[in-house]
C-alpha cells in the first residue's frame, strides 16, 4: 500500500496531518506498535522539516507486511552540511519556529535513531530527499 501527501512549507495549521493519517493506516494494517512508533517519529519529523524549511514537498509511506518506507522529498534550500544537520541540537530554525516548540535540533537525530535504514540526499538551493525504512518484526 502506498500513501502520498502534499506538504506545504509554513503551513503549520495542517502540519502533522499526513503523519497522523500514516499512523492510522499502519494501525489498520496491524503493524507492530514498536514499528508504528518508529515510523511515526520519522514521518512526523520529516513532515515538519518540509513545513519548517522547504517551500513544498511530498511525504510518502510504502507499507508492506515486513517494512515501512517513509520518503520525504522537497523543493527548498537543501542541507549544505548533512553530518552537521544530523548533530543533536544543531538547528537553523528561526526564533518564531522555536517558540512553537520546534527547532530544537532533534528532528534528524530522532529520525536516525528510529530508522533501521536511512539515506539523505540534498542539493543546496534545490531540495532534499529523505528515505527511511523501518522493519516490522
Amino acid at each position, binding site marked *: 500500500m502506498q500513501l502520498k501527501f502534499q506538504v506545504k512549507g509554513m503551513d*503549520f*495549521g495542517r*502540519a*502533522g*496531518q499526513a*503523519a*497522523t493519517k500514516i*499512523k492510522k493506516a499502519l494501525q489498520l494494517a496491524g503493524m507492530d506498535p514498536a514499528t508504528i512508533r518508529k515510523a*511515526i*517519529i520519522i514521518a*512526523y*519529523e520529516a513532515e*515538519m522539516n518540509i513545513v519548517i524549511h522547504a517551500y513544498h514537498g511530498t511525504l510518502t509511506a510504502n507499507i508492506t507486511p515486513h517494512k515501512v518506507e517513509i520518503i520525504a522529498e522537497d523543493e527548498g534550500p537543501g542541507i549544505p552540511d548533512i553530518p552537521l544537520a544530523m548533530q543533536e541540537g544543531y538547528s537553523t530554525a528561526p526564533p518564531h519556529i522555536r517558540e*512553537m*516548540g*520546534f527547532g*530544537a535540533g*532533534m*528532528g534528524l537525530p*530522532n529520525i536516525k*535513531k528510529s530508522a533501521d535504514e536511512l539515506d539523505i540526499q540534498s542539493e543546496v538551493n534545490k531540495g532534499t530527499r529523505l528515505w527511511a525504512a523501518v522493519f516490522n518484526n
Partner: protein
Amino acid sequence: MLHADVLCGADLLDIEVTCGFGCDLISDSLCFARPGCLLLTGLTNVQIIRLAEMVEARAIVFVRGKRPGEDVIKLAREKGLPLLATDLFLFESCGILYQAGLRSS
C-alpha cells in the same frame, strides 16, 4: 489538585491516565510520551493537539497560566481530548501529580 480550569471535555474528566509527561518540546514529546499519558506543557499552538493525537495522550494540562486559542480548543473538542489550564509552573504541576501517585511516561 492543580486548581485547573477545564477548557473543554468537561464530560470526559473521569477518564484514566496511565502516566504523565511534562515537556515544552514537540520532538521530545513525540519520542518519550507514552500512549494513555497526561501531557503537561506550556505549548498552546495547534501542533500540540496533533501531537497528542499522534502519541495517544488522553488529556492536556496547559501550565504557567497559558491558554490556547479558540481554534485549538475547537480541534481538541472534535478529537475528544480534554484540555485543562493551570497557573502553576510545569515543575510544580508535575510534582503535585507525582505525589498523588501519577508516574512518569
